[in-house]
C-alpha cells in the first residue's frame, strides 16, 4: 500500500501532526524508529508551556509559541492530558537583570503575550514564598503552564490511530528514494511507499533531509540534564520559576510537574558524543543543583528520585524551520524544534496541515474524533468510584505499583490501547507504574510479567525501552 503521507518521527510534533491529518480522507503512516512514541526530544524536557516572551519577535518561534500556548488547554482538555495553567516568574537577582526583565516584558508584549507584569521582590516572594531573599524583582507571566509532554504525545497518537493512522514502531528510516510521484522509504521495518513525507525526526531531521539531497541545514544536539524530586518537596514551587536567560538558554528552572513532583534543570551543553547522548554527567548534575539553589535555596538532593538528560534539536538560524524542502515538492521539514517547541507543537501541527493543504486535497472524514477518553486513574478516584470500578473489572482491584497506587487494570489498558505500551518504560509513561520513590524496585518484575502475559511472549523478551534493552536473560534452569 502506498500512503499519501508518511510522517517520520513520533515525537510530540509528529504525533500532533498525525492527529491533525487523521481527520481527513488521506492515508497516513506515522513512523518511529524506537519501540514507542515520545522517545527522543519529547521524552526529556522541562515540560513547560511557555508564555511566549523569549522568542525574538517576528520569528516563527514567537508566532507559533504564542499560538500553541493558547491552543494547549483546549487540546489537552479534548484528550484528557494533564495540563495546569500555573503561571511563571522570571527572577532577577540584580538591577542589571531587571534590564533583561524589561526586555523580556517588551518582547512579550510585541509577541502578543497577555497578562505580563513586572513585579518587585516582595510580590515575587508572595507568589513564591521559597525563592531566595536575593530576588529583586521578576517578570510574572500568568498564561504559562505545565503539561506532560509524553502523555500529550501518547494521547495524540492514540487519537490518530483510532482515526486510521498506521503507527509503525521500530521503523528507522535508512534511505529514501524518489520514484517520481512517490517515495520509497527503506526502513528497519521494511520498505514503505508514500507520496508525501513530513520529516519530524527531531535531532535527526538533517540526516533524513539529506536522504532526498536536502543539506540546507544541520541540527546541533544540545543536552540538558535534570533532577526530579519526590512529591514531598512539591511545596517548593507552585509557579514555574525561571532565571534570566543567557546565551545558552533559559537558565535553570524549578517547576512543579503536573504530577506534583519538582523538576529542576536543565543544563545546556552542545553534545559531541553522538546525537542521542542522554547520559547524565557528574558535573552537569551538580551544576543543576547549584543553579537551582540560587532561585530556591531549599532545593536539595535528599529528595531526588531520579536524574535524566534530554537532547534538544538546535539550528544555527535560532528559529524553527517548518517548510517545503527546496529539493522536493513532496517533502516538508519540521526542524529545529527546540524550546518552546512543546508549547508550539499544537500550532506547528496546524501550520504543517496548512502547508500540506497547498498541494494535497484534504477533505474531512465523515467520522473521526479529536478526543480521547480519560484513562482510568485509580489513585484519583473516590471510594464509591473505586468500588464500582473493581466490581466492573476486578483487575482494577489489584495494586501493582505501591508507591503510585497503580492497578493491574490500568497497566492492561496501557498495553491494549491504540499504539499501546510494548515495554516497561512504555507502561511507566502511560500509567506511572515504577515512577514513584522506589523507582520500580517492587513492581518492575510484575510489570514485566503482565507485559509478557498480555503480549503472549516470554518474560525475557520484554525490554526496558525496546532494542537490546533486555531486562532478564535465559532461564536459570
Amino acid at each position, binding site marked *: 500500500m502506498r500512503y499519501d503521507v508518511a510522517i517520520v518521527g513520533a515525537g510530540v510534533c509528529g504525533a500532533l501532526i498525525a492527529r491533525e491529518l487523521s481527520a481527513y480522507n488521506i492515508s497516513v503512516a506515522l513512523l518511529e524508529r524506537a519501540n514507542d512514541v515520545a522517545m527522543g526530544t519529547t521524552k526529556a524536557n522541562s515540560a513547560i508551556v511557555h508564555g511566549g516572551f523569549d522568542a525574538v519577535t517576528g520569528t516563527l518561534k514567537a508566532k507559533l509559541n504564542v499560538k500553541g500556548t493558547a491552543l494547549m488547554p483546549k487540546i489537552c482538555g479534548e484528550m484528557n492530558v494533564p495540563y495546569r495553567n500555573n503561571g511563571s516568574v522570571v527572577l532577577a537577582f540584580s538591577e542589571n537583570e531587571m534590564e533583561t526583565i524589561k526586555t523580556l516584558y517588551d518582547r512579550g508584549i510585541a509577541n502578543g503575550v497577555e497578562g505580563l507584569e513586572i513585579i518587585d521582590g516582595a510580590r515575587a516572594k508572595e507568589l513564591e514564598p521559597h525563592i531566595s531573599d536575593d530576588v529583586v524583582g521578576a517578570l510574572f507571566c500568568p498564561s504559562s503552564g505545565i503539561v506532560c509532554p509524553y502523555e500529550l504525545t501518547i494521547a495524540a497518537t492514540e487519537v490518530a490511530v483510532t482515526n486510521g493512522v498506521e503507527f509503525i514502531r521500530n521503523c528507522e528510516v535508512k534511505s529514501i528514494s524518489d520514484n517520481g510521484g512517490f517515495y520509497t522509504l527503506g526502513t528497519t521495518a521494511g520498505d514503505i511507499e508514500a507520496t508525501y513525507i513530513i520529516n519530524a525526526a527531531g535531532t535527526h531531521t538533517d540526516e533524513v533531509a539529506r536522504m532526498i539531497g536536502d543539506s540546507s541545514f544541520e541540527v546541533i544536539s544540545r543536552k540538558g540534564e535534570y*533532577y*526530579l524530586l519526590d512529591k514531598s518537596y512539591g511545596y517548593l514551587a507552585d509557579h514555574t520559576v525561571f532565571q534570566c536567560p543567557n546565551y545558552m538558554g533559559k537558565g535553570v528552572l524549578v517547576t512543579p510537574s503536573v504530577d506534583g513532583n519538582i523538576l529542576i534543570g536543565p543544563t545546556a551543553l552542545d553534545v559531541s558524543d553522538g546525537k*542521542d547522548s*542522554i*547520559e*547524565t*554527567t*557528574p558535573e*552537569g*548534575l551538580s551544576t543543576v543543583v547549584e543553579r537551582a539553589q540560587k532561585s530556591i535555596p531549599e532545593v536539595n*538532593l535528599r529528595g*531526588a*528520585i*531520579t*536524574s*535524566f538528560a534530554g537532547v534538544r534539536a538546535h539550528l544555527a538560524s535560532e528559529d524553527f524551520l517548518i517548510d517545503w524542502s527546496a529539493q522536493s515538492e513532496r517533502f516538508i521539514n519540521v526542524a529545529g524544534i527546540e524550546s518552546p517547541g512543546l508549547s508550539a507543537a499544537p500550532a506547528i501541527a496546524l501550520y504543517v496541515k496548512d502547508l500540506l493543504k497547498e498541494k494535497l486535497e484534504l477533505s474531512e472524514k465523515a467520522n473521526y474524533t479529536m478526543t480521547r477518553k480519560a484513562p482510568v486513574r485509580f489513585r484519583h478516584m473516590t*471510594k464509591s468510584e*473505586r*468500588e464500582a470500578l*473493581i*466490581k466492573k473489572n*476486578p*483487575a*482494577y*482491584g*489489584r*495494586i501493582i505499583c*505501591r*508507591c503510585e*497506587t497503580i492497578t*493491574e487494570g490500568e497497566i492492561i489498558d496501557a498495553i491494549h490501547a491504540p499504539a499501546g505500551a510494548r515495554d516497561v518504560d512504555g507502561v511507566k509513561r502511560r500509567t506511572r507504574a515504577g515512577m514513584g*520513590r*522506589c*523507582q*520500580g*524496585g*517492587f513492581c*518492575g*518484575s510484575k510489570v514485566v*510479567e503482565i507485559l509478557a502475559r498480555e503480549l503472549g511472549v516470554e*518474560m*525475557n523478551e520484554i*525490554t*526496558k*525501552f*525496546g*532494542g*537490546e*534493552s*533486555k*531486562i*532478564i*536473560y*535465559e*532461564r*536459570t*534452569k
Partner: protein
Amino acid sequence: MRECDLVVIGGGPAGMAAALKAYEEGIKDILILERAETLGGILEQCIHTGFGLHYFGEELSGPEYADRFIEEIYKTDIDIRVDTMVLNVSADNVVTACNNFDGLLQIKAKAVVLAMGCRERPRGALSIAGCRASGIMTAGTAQKYVNLDGYMPGHEVVILGSGDIGLIMARRMTLEGAKVKAVCELMPYSGGLTRNIVQCLEDFGIPLRLSCTVVKTHGKDRLEGVTVANVDKNLKPILGTEEYIPCDTLMLSVGLIPENELSKNSGIDLDPVTNGPVVDEYRETVRKGVFACGNVLQVHDLVDYVTEESQIAGEGAAKFIKGEKEYGGYISTKGENGVRYIVPQRINKATDKDVKLYFRVGKVFRNVKLVVKCGDEIISSKKKNKMTPGEMEYVPIKLETIKALPENGVITVTIEEA
C-alpha cells in the same frame, strides 16, 4: 463495615509473629492483610540459609523459616487476605484495602499492627551519572528474578554496596554461572555480616573494594560497563582513580528504607533516624492502638530479632485490646557518641516488664565501653570488643530500674573509651 479486633498489615515474618502472639494471648478475631500472593514476605525469595540460628537453633532458609510460621497460622482461625493492598489507615483505625476478589474493603479495628517491611534504596537516590540503559537494578529485584521467576538478570555483574543482600547476591549469581567482577563499598567498612563477606565473596575470589563507588554507567540499550573510583574521607570520588569495568548488570545494595507511607499518611510520628514510627516498649506508636514491628520499625539484619520484636508488638496489641495495657508517664531513650538511635524511643513508666533497648552504631568501634545512663547515674556498663554499623545491638534494662527512674527521665546509651 466489618469489625475486627486486630488488623495486621503485612504477612511477612513480622506480621505473622505479631498475629500468632496476639492469638496466643487470647485475641481470636485477627485479620492479616498481605500485598503479595503468599504469606512469608521477603523471606520467600531469600533462599540462602542462616535464618533461625537464634530463634530455632537451626540454620534454615528464608522460605523454611517463613513456613514454620505459615503452618502455625493455618492451625489457627486467623483470617488472611493475600494479594491485598492497604490504601489507608484512618485516625480512628479504619483500615481501607483492596484486592481483586473482595473489591474495596473497610475494616474497623480495635488495634492495628503495622508490619509493612522495608524497600531498597533505588538508583535515583544515589545520583549516579550516566545512561538510562537496562541492567541497573536493586539486588532484591535481581534476587526475585533468579530465585522466584527463574531468570538470569545478567552475566557480568558489578555490585554497588556491601549490604547483606548484595553479598548474598554475589554468591547466588556466581553459583548460577555469572561472573561477579567486584563489590564496591562507599564506606571504608562493609555493611554486611563478616560471615557473608567470607562465604559470599572470599570463597569465590570476588574482590571487595572499600571506599569505592560507581561514578558513571555506560551503555545505550543494555548496560555495557561502569566507571568506578575511589573516594576520599568525605566520600567524594578522587580524580584520577577512575577505572572502567565492563559489565551488563549493576546491582545496588545501598540501604533499606522502612516503608512508612501508610504510617505517615495516617499521621503517625516517625523517628527521623530509623525512618520508622516512634514506639514504646510494647512497640505501640504515638497513636493508641497502633503498633509497629519488623523492618517497618527499624531495619533488621536478623529475622530472628524481627520475630522477637513482633511478638512484643503482638503481646502489646493483645493487652491493648483486652484493656490491660497500662499507661503512665514516659521515660525517653536517646543514643549518644556514635549510638545512632534507640528502639523503643520511649518506655511507659507503668510498664510491667524488662525492656531491651535496640540500637545501631554509626561507625566501627573496637575495645570500647557501652554505657547506659540516666542523667549522671550509670545504669550499666559493658565492655565491647567490636561493634559495627552492620549489626544491631541491644542492652537490657530491668523493670526495677525503670520503676526507679523519674518520670520524664531520659535513658542515654553511649559509647565511652574502655
